[in-house]
């Protein structure tokens, strides 16, 4: 699974992207966030702010209940501020 991080999520995690193999019990975006929080102090710091983090699965905005699978591209970021 390819993961991408943007804005302060990227800065806290310390990576712009990484490839991971989550355990089988990780089935959705919420589960993935909980699992990622255990990977490093940087991940823990970023995902401690879970309520402020939005996600996209395969480049579509995705609520926390969205299923995730091995070949998905999943991105985590703060609420958008373009325009």
């Amino acid at each position, binding site marked *: 699974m390819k993961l991408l991080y943007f804005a*302060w999520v990227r800065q806290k995690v310390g990576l712009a992207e990484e490839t991971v193999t989550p355990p089988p019990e990780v089935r959705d975006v919420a589960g993935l966030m909980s699992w990622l929080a255990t990977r490093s102090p940087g991940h823990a710091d970023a995902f401690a702010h879970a309520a402020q983090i939005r996600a996209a699965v395969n480049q579509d905005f995705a609520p926390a209940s969205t299923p995730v699978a091995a070949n998905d591209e999943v*991105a985590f*970021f703060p*609420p*958008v*501020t*373009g325009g």
Partner: protein
Amino acid sequence: MARVLVQREVFDLGAESALLSEGRTDVGGIASFVGICRADDGLAAMTLEHYPGMTERALAAIAAQAESRWPLTGCTVIHRHGRMLPGDPIVLVLTASRHRIAALESCAFLIDWLKTKAPFWKAEEFADGTTRWVDAKAEDDAATARWGA
């Protein structure tokens, strides 16, 4: 089919506007919005980060929404990324139609929607060297909501 560009380079409002009317006689008006980097609170620069790939998809989907809601003869959305200085143009929205109301309304819709539905993030730099990520604003969500789902 809208013209959607995500680029570092500055855009040319006059040239982009001309593209929407040249060679045709059915265009009655073109509405434009240019978003510009403001220097609030001693801001020295602003850097826009985006999600390559998703950004283009999201902007195209937003433009398609505008084209489905209003009878447009053309539509252009250009959003820059990278580092901007106060006064620099950031985003351009152009909508062309036979009549003004469709052009003006769809232009407002596009800028409201892209503020809350396109994956861009602004980081502000200040003269004292500090930086901070811009927080999303409730008023932007409200502006998006006024157009319905």
